[in-house]
Protein backbone atom coordinates (compact mmCIF):
# COMPACT_ATOMS: atom_id res chain seq x y z
CA UNK A 1 0.00 0.00 0.00
CA UNK A 2 1.27 3.50 -0.79
CA UNK A 3 2.77 4.94 2.39
CA UNK A 4 1.14 8.36 2.08
CA UNK A 5 -2.26 6.85 1.48
CA UNK A 6 -1.79 4.49 4.40
CA UNK A 7 -0.85 7.39 6.67
CA UNK A 8 -3.82 9.43 5.55
CA UNK A 9 -6.14 6.51 6.14
CA UNK A 10 -4.66 5.84 9.54
CA UNK A 11 -4.80 9.52 10.44
CA UNK A 12 -8.49 9.52 9.59
CA UNK A 13 -9.28 6.34 11.52
CA UNK A 14 -7.16 7.06 14.56
CA UNK A 15 -7.89 10.74 15.07
CA UNK A 16 -4.39 11.68 13.89
CA UNK A 17 -2.44 9.66 16.44
CA UNK A 18 0.97 9.40 14.77
CA UNK A 19 3.41 6.56 15.46
CA UNK A 20 5.40 8.99 17.58
CA UNK A 21 2.29 9.80 19.63
CA UNK A 22 1.76 6.08 20.15
CA UNK A 23 5.35 5.59 21.32
CA UNK A 24 5.08 8.53 23.70
CA UNK A 25 1.71 7.49 25.10
CA UNK A 26 2.40 3.80 25.42
CA UNK A 27 2.96 3.86 29.20
CA UNK A 28 -0.21 5.91 29.71
CA UNK A 29 -2.03 3.21 27.76
CA UNK A 30 -0.45 0.35 29.71
CA UNK A 31 -1.13 2.17 33.00
CA UNK A 32 -4.80 2.48 32.10
CA UNK A 33 -4.89 6.27 32.37
CA UNK A 34 -6.70 6.82 29.06
CA UNK A 35 -10.28 7.84 28.52
CA UNK A 36 -12.41 5.39 26.54
CA UNK A 37 -12.08 7.45 23.33
CA UNK A 38 -8.29 7.72 23.63
CA UNK A 39 -8.12 4.02 24.28
CA UNK A 40 -10.15 3.19 21.20
CA UNK A 41 -8.09 5.51 19.00
CA UNK A 42 -4.89 4.01 20.37
CA UNK A 43 -6.13 0.48 19.77
CA UNK A 44 -7.28 1.40 16.28
CA UNK A 45 -3.78 2.62 15.42
CA UNK A 46 -2.19 -0.49 16.97
CA UNK A 47 -4.57 -2.67 14.97
CA UNK A 48 -3.55 -1.02 11.71
CA UNK A 49 0.17 -0.43 12.26
CA UNK A 50 2.53 -3.42 12.46
CA UNK A 51 5.48 -1.26 13.59
CA UNK A 52 3.58 0.16 16.57
CA UNK A 53 2.15 -3.27 17.37
CA UNK A 54 5.72 -4.57 17.48
CA UNK A 55 6.77 -1.65 19.65
CA UNK A 56 3.93 -2.26 22.11
CA UNK A 57 4.93 -5.90 22.34
CA UNK A 58 8.57 -4.94 22.86
CA UNK A 59 7.58 -2.67 25.75
CA UNK A 60 5.46 -5.42 27.30
CA UNK A 61 8.35 -7.88 27.01
CA UNK A 62 10.72 -5.31 28.52
CA UNK A 63 8.44 -5.03 31.57
CA UNK A 64 8.17 -8.84 31.76
CA UNK A 65 11.97 -9.16 31.70
CA UNK A 66 12.43 -6.52 34.40
CA UNK A 67 9.82 -8.22 36.58
CA UNK A 68 11.78 -11.47 36.49
CA UNK A 69 15.29 -10.16 37.11
CA UNK A 70 16.99 -12.25 39.77
CA UNK A 71 16.67 -10.88 43.30
CA UNK A 72 19.50 -8.78 44.67
CA UNK A 73 21.55 -11.18 46.81
CA UNK A 74 21.69 -10.27 50.49
CA UNK A 75 25.01 -11.19 52.11
CA UNK A 76 24.65 -13.76 54.94
CA UNK A 77 26.69 -11.63 57.36
CA UNK A 78 24.08 -8.89 57.00
CA UNK A 79 21.24 -11.27 57.86
CA UNK A 80 23.13 -12.57 60.89
CA UNK A 81 23.85 -9.05 62.07
CA UNK A 82 20.19 -8.08 61.69
CA UNK A 83 18.96 -11.11 63.58
CA UNK A 84 21.44 -10.34 66.35
CA UNK A 85 20.20 -6.76 66.55
CA UNK A 86 16.60 -7.98 66.54
CA UNK A 87 17.27 -10.23 69.53
CA UNK A 88 18.99 -7.41 71.40
CA UNK A 89 16.03 -5.16 70.65
CA UNK A 90 13.63 -7.85 71.86
CA UNK A 91 15.39 -8.19 75.20
CA UNK A 92 15.36 -4.44 75.68
CA UNK A 93 11.59 -4.30 75.29
CA UNK A 94 9.88 -3.48 78.61
CA UNK A 95 7.10 -6.07 78.81
CA UNK A 96 7.24 -8.49 75.85
CA UNK A 97 10.69 -10.13 75.90
CA UNK A 98 10.26 -13.83 76.53
CA UNK A 99 6.55 -14.07 75.73
CA UNK A 100 6.73 -16.07 72.54
CA UNK A 101 9.00 -17.62 69.98
CA UNK A 102 7.23 -19.60 67.35
Amino acid at each position, binding site marked *: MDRNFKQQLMGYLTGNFSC*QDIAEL*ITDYLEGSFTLTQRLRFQMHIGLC*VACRNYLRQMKYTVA*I*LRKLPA*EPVPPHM*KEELLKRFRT*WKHEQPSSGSSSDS
Partner: protein
Amino acid sequence: MVLFVWPWPSRLFIMLGVPTLQEIIQLDEAGLVEALQRGDDAVFTVVMDWYSGSLLRLAMAYVPSRAVAEEVVQETWMGVLEGIARFEGRSSFKTWLFRILTNRAKTRGTRERRYEPFGLPGSDFEGDEGPSFEDSLFVAEGSGKGYWIDPPQGWEPDTPERALLSKECRTAIEVAINGLPDTQRQVITLRDVEGVSAEEVCNILTISETNQRVLLHRARTKVRRVLDPYVRGGNL
Protein backbone atom coordinates in the same frame (compact mmCIF):
# COMPACT_ATOMS: atom_id res chain seq x y z
CA MET B 1 12.58 -46.46 46.56
CA VAL B 2 13.26 -43.50 48.80
CA LEU B 3 13.89 -41.42 45.70
CA PHE B 4 10.34 -42.05 44.53
CA VAL B 5 8.79 -41.31 47.88
CA TRP B 6 10.60 -38.29 49.27
CA PRO B 7 8.96 -35.45 47.31
CA TRP B 8 5.48 -36.58 48.18
CA PRO B 9 4.97 -34.98 51.59
CA SER B 10 5.68 -31.49 50.18
CA ARG B 11 3.55 -32.20 47.11
CA LEU B 12 0.76 -33.33 49.39
CA PHE B 13 0.94 -30.01 51.25
CA ILE B 14 0.74 -28.15 47.95
CA MET B 15 -2.23 -30.26 46.81
CA LEU B 16 -4.01 -29.70 50.11
CA GLY B 17 -3.33 -25.97 49.83
CA VAL B 18 -1.31 -25.76 53.05
CA PRO B 19 0.12 -22.22 52.94
CA THR B 20 3.79 -21.43 53.50
CA LEU B 21 4.86 -19.02 56.23
CA GLN B 22 5.43 -16.39 53.53
CA GLU B 23 1.88 -16.81 52.24
CA ILE B 24 0.47 -16.56 55.76
CA ILE B 25 2.40 -13.34 56.33
CA GLN B 26 1.28 -11.88 53.03
CA LEU B 27 -2.36 -12.66 53.74
CA ASP B 28 -2.37 -11.60 57.36
CA GLU B 29 -0.64 -8.25 57.66
CA ALA B 30 -2.13 -7.45 61.07
CA GLY B 31 -0.80 -10.80 62.29
CA LEU B 32 2.63 -9.98 60.86
CA VAL B 33 2.78 -6.63 62.62
CA GLU B 34 1.59 -8.17 65.87
CA ALA B 35 4.24 -10.93 65.62
CA LEU B 36 6.98 -8.36 65.04
CA GLN B 37 5.73 -6.26 67.95
CA ARG B 38 6.01 -9.22 70.31
CA GLY B 39 9.48 -10.09 68.94
CA ASP B 40 8.86 -13.30 67.00
CA ASP B 41 12.26 -14.47 65.67
CA ALA B 42 10.85 -16.75 62.96
CA VAL B 43 8.56 -14.10 61.51
CA PHE B 44 11.31 -11.48 61.57
CA THR B 45 13.68 -13.86 59.78
CA VAL B 46 11.16 -14.59 57.02
CA VAL B 47 10.19 -10.94 56.56
CA MET B 48 13.81 -9.82 56.56
CA ASP B 49 14.75 -12.54 54.05
CA TRP B 50 11.83 -11.62 51.89
CA TYR B 51 12.25 -7.86 51.71
CA SER B 52 15.99 -7.20 52.18
CA GLY B 53 16.88 -7.88 48.53
CA SER B 54 14.21 -5.43 47.35
CA LEU B 55 15.29 -2.85 49.93
CA LEU B 56 18.91 -3.23 48.89
CA ARG B 57 18.07 -2.73 45.23
CA LEU B 58 16.11 0.43 45.96
CA ALA B 59 18.76 1.77 48.35
CA MET B 60 21.32 1.46 45.56
CA ALA B 61 19.26 3.97 43.56
CA TYR B 62 20.04 6.60 46.22
CA VAL B 63 23.56 5.99 47.44
CA PRO B 64 26.83 5.59 45.56
CA SER B 65 27.97 2.17 46.72
CA ARG B 66 26.64 -1.23 47.62
CA ALA B 67 28.36 -1.09 51.01
CA VAL B 68 26.51 2.11 51.92
CA ALA B 69 23.25 0.61 50.57
CA GLU B 70 23.70 -2.38 52.89
CA GLU B 71 24.13 -0.01 55.83
CA VAL B 72 20.96 1.84 54.79
CA VAL B 73 19.03 -1.45 54.74
CA GLN B 74 20.31 -2.29 58.23
CA GLU B 75 19.27 1.18 59.44
CA THR B 76 15.87 0.63 57.82
CA TRP B 77 15.26 -2.57 59.79
CA MET B 78 16.31 -0.78 62.96
CA GLY B 79 13.80 1.92 62.03
CA VAL B 80 11.14 -0.77 61.64
CA LEU B 81 11.84 -2.07 65.15
CA GLU B 82 11.77 1.45 66.60
CA GLY B 83 8.48 2.25 64.91
CA ILE B 84 6.62 -1.06 64.88
CA ALA B 85 4.88 -0.40 68.21
CA ARG B 86 3.31 2.73 66.72
CA PHE B 87 2.42 1.17 63.32
CA GLU B 88 -1.31 1.70 62.84
CA GLY B 89 -1.83 0.15 59.43
CA ARG B 90 -2.81 3.39 57.69
CA SER B 91 -0.61 2.27 54.80
CA SER B 92 0.40 -1.28 53.98
CA PHE B 93 3.40 -2.70 55.84
CA LYS B 94 5.32 -2.83 52.56
CA THR B 95 4.68 0.86 51.76
CA TRP B 96 5.66 1.80 55.31
CA LEU B 97 8.84 -0.26 55.06
CA PHE B 98 9.89 1.26 51.73
CA ARG B 99 9.15 4.74 53.04
CA ILE B 100 11.46 4.23 55.99
CA LEU B 101 14.09 3.11 53.51
CA THR B 102 13.65 6.07 51.15
CA ASN B 103 13.83 8.56 54.06
CA ARG B 104 17.02 7.01 55.39
CA ALA B 105 18.51 6.57 51.94
CA LYS B 106 17.81 10.21 51.02
CA THR B 107 19.51 11.44 54.19
CA ARG B 108 22.43 9.15 53.56
CA GLY B 109 22.58 9.95 49.85
CA THR B 110 22.63 13.69 50.55
CA ARG B 111 25.46 13.15 53.00
CA GLU B 112 27.31 11.15 50.38
CA ARG B 113 26.64 14.05 47.93
CA ARG B 114 24.92 11.98 45.32
CA TYR B 115 21.22 12.30 45.80
CA GLU B 116 19.47 15.60 45.30
CA PRO B 117 15.78 15.85 46.14
CA PHE B 118 13.11 16.30 43.51
CA GLY B 119 12.77 19.67 41.89
CA LEU B 120 15.94 21.35 43.16
CA PRO B 121 18.24 22.98 40.61
CA GLY B 122 20.65 20.45 39.27
CA SER B 123 18.46 17.53 40.19
CA ASP B 124 17.94 14.87 37.57
CA PHE B 125 14.18 15.03 37.80
CA GLU B 126 12.73 15.05 34.33
CA GLY B 127 9.15 16.17 34.18
CA ASP B 128 6.82 16.60 31.25
CA GLU B 129 8.82 19.42 29.75
CA GLY B 130 11.75 19.40 27.39
CA PRO B 131 12.23 17.67 24.07
CA SER B 132 11.17 14.08 23.84
CA PHE B 133 13.98 11.54 23.88
CA GLU B 134 11.98 9.56 21.32
CA ASP B 135 12.35 12.29 18.67
CA SER B 136 15.34 10.65 17.04
CA LEU B 137 13.31 7.54 16.20
CA PHE B 138 10.81 9.38 13.99
CA VAL B 139 10.70 11.34 10.78
CA ALA B 140 10.88 15.00 11.84
CA GLU B 141 9.45 16.73 8.77
CA GLY B 142 7.62 16.27 5.52
CA SER B 143 4.88 13.89 4.50
CA GLY B 144 6.16 11.05 6.70
CA LYS B 145 6.29 13.23 9.85
CA GLY B 146 5.84 11.19 13.02
CA TYR B 147 6.40 7.89 11.22
CA TRP B 148 9.09 5.43 12.33
CA ILE B 149 12.48 5.95 10.66
CA ASP B 150 13.42 2.36 11.43
CA PRO B 151 10.17 0.49 12.20
CA PRO B 152 10.45 -1.80 15.25
CA GLN B 153 10.80 -5.50 14.49
CA GLY B 154 8.75 -8.17 16.15
CA TRP B 155 10.36 -9.85 19.14
CA GLU B 156 9.76 -13.59 19.36
CA PRO B 157 7.38 -14.74 22.12
CA ASP B 158 10.23 -16.47 23.99
CA THR B 159 12.32 -13.27 24.12
CA PRO B 160 11.83 -12.68 27.89
CA GLU B 161 12.98 -16.20 28.74
CA ARG B 162 16.00 -16.02 26.43
CA ALA B 163 16.96 -12.55 27.66
CA LEU B 164 16.86 -13.72 31.27
CA LEU B 165 18.97 -16.76 30.48
CA SER B 166 21.69 -14.65 28.84
CA LYS B 167 24.12 -13.38 31.48
CA GLU B 168 25.40 -10.77 29.06
CA CYS B 169 21.90 -9.45 28.47
CA ARG B 170 21.06 -9.40 32.20
CA THR B 171 24.25 -7.44 32.86
CA ALA B 172 23.34 -4.98 30.09
CA ILE B 173 19.91 -4.44 31.70
CA GLU B 174 21.45 -3.90 35.14
CA VAL B 175 23.95 -1.42 33.66
CA ALA B 176 21.11 0.38 31.86
CA ILE B 177 19.10 0.66 35.10
CA ASN B 178 22.15 1.81 37.06
CA GLY B 179 22.81 4.46 34.43
CA LEU B 180 19.33 5.99 34.66
CA PRO B 181 18.79 9.29 36.47
CA ASP B 182 18.09 8.50 40.14
CA THR B 183 14.38 9.29 40.08
CA GLN B 184 13.76 7.15 36.99
CA ARG B 185 15.78 4.36 38.54
CA GLN B 186 13.76 4.52 41.76
CA VAL B 187 10.45 4.35 39.89
CA ILE B 188 11.39 1.51 37.52
CA THR B 189 12.97 -0.46 40.37
CA LEU B 190 9.81 -0.27 42.43
CA ARG B 191 7.26 -0.62 39.66
CA ASP B 192 8.77 -3.13 37.28
CA VAL B 193 11.52 -4.95 39.12
CA GLU B 194 9.73 -5.22 42.46
CA GLY B 195 6.17 -5.19 41.13
CA VAL B 196 4.86 -2.47 43.46
CA SER B 197 1.55 -0.86 42.38
CA ALA B 198 1.50 2.66 40.89
CA GLU B 199 -0.43 4.02 43.88
CA GLU B 200 2.07 2.59 46.35
CA VAL B 201 5.02 3.97 44.35
CA CYS B 202 3.48 7.46 44.51
CA ASN B 203 3.11 7.06 48.29
CA ILE B 204 6.60 5.70 48.81
CA LEU B 205 8.39 8.29 46.68
CA THR B 206 5.87 11.10 47.42
CA ILE B 207 5.43 11.98 43.76
CA SER B 208 2.30 12.63 41.73
CA GLU B 209 0.68 10.00 39.55
CA THR B 210 1.66 11.95 36.42
CA ASN B 211 5.31 12.22 37.46
CA GLN B 212 5.35 8.54 38.25
CA ARG B 213 4.10 7.73 34.76
CA VAL B 214 6.51 10.08 33.00
CA LEU B 215 9.51 8.74 34.92
CA LEU B 216 8.42 5.15 34.37
CA HIS B 217 7.92 5.74 30.66
CA ARG B 218 11.34 7.29 30.19
CA ALA B 219 13.04 4.55 32.16
CA ARG B 220 11.25 1.73 30.32
CA THR B 221 12.01 3.31 26.95
CA LYS B 222 15.73 3.43 27.74
CA VAL B 223 15.82 -0.18 28.93
CA ARG B 224 13.97 -1.31 25.79
CA ARG B 225 16.54 0.50 23.66
CA VAL B 226 19.33 -1.37 25.40
CA LEU B 227 17.56 -4.68 24.89
CA ASP B 228 16.71 -4.22 21.24
CA PRO B 229 20.18 -4.81 19.70
CA TYR B 230 20.54 -8.02 21.74
CA VAL B 231 17.24 -9.35 20.51
CA ARG B 232 17.68 -8.18 16.92
CA GLY B 233 21.27 -9.29 16.63
CA GLY B 234 20.31 -12.80 17.69
CA ASN B 235 22.76 -12.51 20.60
CA LEU B 236 20.41 -14.14 23.07
